[in-house]
């Protein structure tokens, strides 16, 4: 176990380094001028001498390699730099927004797990029925629908037409403080859309897996022993079908990150994911680099956790080397 973690970490470090270098190269090649983005509408009325002085203060007039080395050195000493587009230290921007992203995505993951386990198992249990066809068909249709489209559809139906839920934001526009109930109401649509958009593959996977195990001898045995159908499905079939599921969950983290970016943007949710769009458009390298690093870490950690969980769940894999 320790060996696996050590191996992964040894692999992760050069990976993270390569990701930041690639990020930096892309930011350099971007046609957008960071100083223009910083100035916003004021770019047209700012003295060119001021523009040059800002460029010099940010070190943008230095050679590319030197800029990268400086940034990396600061990062190692814990200085994340200042976000140009937010006019604030990167650490503050992240600290303020990360909790909202974690709240939304963890709720979405929980909902997605519970929802797709139930739907997948139901479909497997009643394989071939109208219920199975509805769930399977729905899952395929959902998989082909882009996340942002689903989000806009949800806004149109539940916020514009029915008026049941707010269309976006974190709290009511007139609210002067954060009321947990108000936030919960604003949380519903983003969480449900994110969960639903990511759940198709999970539903289909659970269905296949449960159908497979239902044919296994131990399930047939349990049935022939006269156990209740519910016990057979939940305690025997589902449990053993869950094992490979963990690996897949870890491997799907990148999709979840992408989904979060789109959902947060459409619902004006003030999390870190939507921030990355703004950072990319304004070539806010200090912020974009940290966000990309965080995304990379999430993917690496997701895979590692999945592998570890798999080993804990299935003792046979423990002996196998990486």
């Amino acid at each position, binding site marked *: 176990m320790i060996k696996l973690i050590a191996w992964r970490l040894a692999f992760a470090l050069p990976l993270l380094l390569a990701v930041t270098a690639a990020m930096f190269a892309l930011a350099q090649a971007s*046609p*957008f*001028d960071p100083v*223009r983005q*910083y*100035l*916003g*509408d*004021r*770019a*047209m*009325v*700012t*003295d*060119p*001498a*001021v*523009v040059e*002085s*800002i460029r010099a203060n940010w070190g943008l007039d230095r050679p590319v390699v030197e800029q990268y080395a400086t940034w990396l050195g600061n990062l190692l000493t814990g200085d994340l730099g200042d976000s140009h587009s*937010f*006019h*604030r230290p990167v650490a503050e921007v992240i600290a*303020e927004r990360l909790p909202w992203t974690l709240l939304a995505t963890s709720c979405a993951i929980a909902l997605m797990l519970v929802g797709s386990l139930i739907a997948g198992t139901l479909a497997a249990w009643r394989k071939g029925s109208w219920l199975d066809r509805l769930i399977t068909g729905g899952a395929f249709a959902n998989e082909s629908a882009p996340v*942002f*489209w689903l*989000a*806009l559809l949800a*806004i*149109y139906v539940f*916020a*514009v*037409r*029915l*008026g*049941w*839920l*707010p*269309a976006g*934001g*974190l*709290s*009511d*526009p*007139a*609210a*002067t*403080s954060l009321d947990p109930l*108000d936030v919960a*109401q604003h949380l519903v649509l983003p969480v449900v859309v994110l969960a639903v958009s990511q759940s198709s593959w999970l539903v289909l996977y659970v269905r296949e897996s449960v159908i497979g195990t239902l044919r296994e001898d131990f399930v047939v045995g349990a049935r022939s022993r006269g156990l209740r159908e519910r016990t057979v499905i939940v305690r025997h079939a589902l449990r053993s079908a869950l094992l490979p599921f963990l690996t897949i969950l870890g491997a799907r983290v990148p999709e979840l990150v*992408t989904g979060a*970016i*789109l959902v947060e*943007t*459409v619902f004006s949710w*003030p999390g870190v994911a*939507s921030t990355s*769009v703004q950072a*990319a*458009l304004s070539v806010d390298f200090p912020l974009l680099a940290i966000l990309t690093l965080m995304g990379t870490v999430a993917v690496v950690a997701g895979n590692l956790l999945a592998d570890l969980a798999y080993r804990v769940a299935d003792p046979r894999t423990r002996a196998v080397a990486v």
Partner: protein
Amino acid sequence: MGLARRLAALTVAATLATACSAPQGPAPAAGGAGDAFVIGLGSEFENLSPVLGFAADGGSLMFDGLMRRAPDLSLQPNLASAPPASSPDGKTVTFTLREGVKFHDGRPLTARDVAYTYTTLLDPKTNSPISGDYSAIEQVSAKDDRTVEFTLKHPYAPLVQRTTLGIVPEGGIDPAKPVGTGPYSFVSWTPGDKVVLKANESYFGGAPAIKNVVLAFALDDNVRSTRLAAGEFDAAILPPKAAKRFENTAGTKVYRVDSADYRGIMFPMKEKVTGDLAVRKAFDLAVDRQAMVDTILAGSGKPAFGPISPDISWHNPAVTGNPRPDRDQAAKLLDEAGWKLGEDGVRAKDGLRAAFTLMYPAGDSLRKELALATASDAKKIGLEVKPEGLDWDAIEPRMAKDALIMGYGSPYDPDYLNYELFHSSYQGKGFFNPGYYANPEVDKLLETGRESADEAVRKQAYTDFQKIIHDQQVWTYLVFLKHVYVVRGDWQGITPSVDAHEHATGGLFRDLASWKPGK
């Protein structure tokens, strides 16, 4: 998914959001406006720090400057107790502060806070985008608790106009919790969502009647209009067409406020076609400004003939024209100058076709419509104008070669912008004078206007300046916009002024603290 595709997807998403929000939903999102006054704004603040350029021209609600502007644009003492005293050489300006003013956190205002604000703004390390506007200042120092002295590098008449800049306490403000002396104090800022303010009950100008203010950001015009109709917003800034539906609605009032905000065409002076005065004059005559105001602006605008709006006292009444095109006169001018109509309907002179490219920023639908309209007007007199929508980063390197639709305009002082746009020392410097206009006579007038302390001398200088710019058609000005605000409810004390090009919390809402319920 690649980044490009993701961005493309977002663009589609934004378009769809517009399409989705356009239908009239039967019900607003949960929760009404409550007791807070909610203003729907179309763009979010980049920051809330006056030294970084937040509301430097006043109207921030949270901060006060040494001076403030009355609705007629005259300057009145605000944190200063009286208008400033200038030394005879015009290089030293002294302000005395009002007594008993306190910041929102209870600290008393002193001259050191004023000196700190200006010194920080001018410090190159601050990276303030507006430091160029204050470059005439050599230093600002506190003589005693209530006396501030500005020392200037050269006489600079508009200095007093610049002192509407909000004053922050010495030592600076936490960007997450700004502190000022204004009628409203800061409560919270949810980035991407809103800024919440509450009344400053101990404001030296009297406590505001509206106790809670929310500045909500909704970038999409249709979203803002829908949320206003649903009662979520109490007021909003809207484009003229989106404001139409509120005109005959009970309970809402539409304000069309005059502005100095113009759209015009900047010509590259060193190019053969646009550098020819006859072409520019004929182009000016061919443009149908009235049609632009009536159709493109839905009536919310005025024809423009020069950089200074007729609503401002600095305007030269001789700078005017016919809002309708005069194609015969235009054709005559071109014929006389040797531009003869060719077989393809485009004029030519010595083998050179009378054609030029007109660039506009691709995302700006107003400038796009204006570009298309001028192109079709020009075609009628045999000029070929090719409109081309580009990103600003693509426009910038081409500005010396191709004409461009630009928008500027400040109602405050004629020195603002005009010096940078027309003085030869700014030739080819970024977005200032990109067409390489150089005229020693104009340079001289702009310098006189900037440095003279005599109002009559300044007035004459800017009157002559406007005449030359108009006669030489350095730019062809098209329209002045009117800014449209919709306000719900019955309020007294709403005093429209003349808006500038930018309008965040300024504009109609700059005097929010003195609004009173009508009944």
